[in-house]
């Protein structure tokens, strides 16, 4: 009935997650880091939705969770951008390697 196997979706999610992870850990611009995190969340969402359809016990719950994740992601982005802006005002930079106050 369906030509697309479950592993194809999962593999795609994996690839996107890896890309997001790489971006989150290497990019210097904080905004891109945030976006990369969004990408990772999206990859997770794909997994959730995939399992909700092809999983062991298919049900709508996976989609519900996706809704929650999207909501949390939106909240996170809002707060993230707010923090970023206030940081930018203080330090005139959005580069992660200049934010090393953890060290001192």
């Amino acid at each position: 009935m369906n030509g697309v196997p479950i592993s194809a979706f999962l593999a795609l999610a994996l690839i996107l997650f890896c890309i997001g992870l790489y971006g989150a850990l290497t990019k210097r611009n904080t905004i891109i880091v945030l976006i990369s995190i969004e990408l990772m969340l999206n990859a997770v969402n794909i997994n959730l939705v995939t399992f909700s359809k092809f999983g062991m016990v298919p049900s709508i719950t996976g989609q519900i969770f996706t809704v929650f994740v999207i909501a949390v992601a939106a909240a996170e982005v809002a707060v993230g951008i707010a923090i970023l802006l206030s940081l930018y005002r203080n330090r005139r930079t959005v580069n992660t390697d200049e934010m090393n106050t953890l060290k001192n």
Partner: protein
Amino acid sequence: MTVSGEFIAFLALALVAIIGGVLLLNLTKVVHMVVALVFTFLSIAGLYVLLSAEFLAVVQVLVYSGAISIIMLFGIMLTKHNDEDDESPSVGRWKRLFLLLGILAFGAVFYIGIYDLDFGTTPVALHENNAEQIGMELFSKYVIPFELMSVLLLVAFVGAIVLSRKDDDEKEAEKE
């Protein structure tokens, strides 16, 4: 495996999503990166349709491609909007290689886990009245998390406003 239309659609969408992701990594201008990612988000929305989650597809388009991307663009414009993300190669080369190896290992491990995963197909009716099904679940079984989520959103927005306003107060305080 027969090449169905659905499969072609999946391939196309997946390709766009991955290209978007790769461009995110490789473009130099921050704005371009965000735009590249919008394509990814859109193609993910398409994938949701394939996975019988029409409601989610719509939400995805609205929230990600719409709201979040726009917020990001605003964020960029409020900071150094024409900043180029010049990756200083000397500093992080080893770190990057290290990380790449780690990610490859991670990917490999998971790929081993999923490449022949098949639970068998159970016919489901997710696509019928998708939004209604979600609504039913959400307001019956998941009503408390739903309410909590609204509280979270509220707190987040208030927090965001406070954070971005606080400095204004300080600046005024400094001026005085």
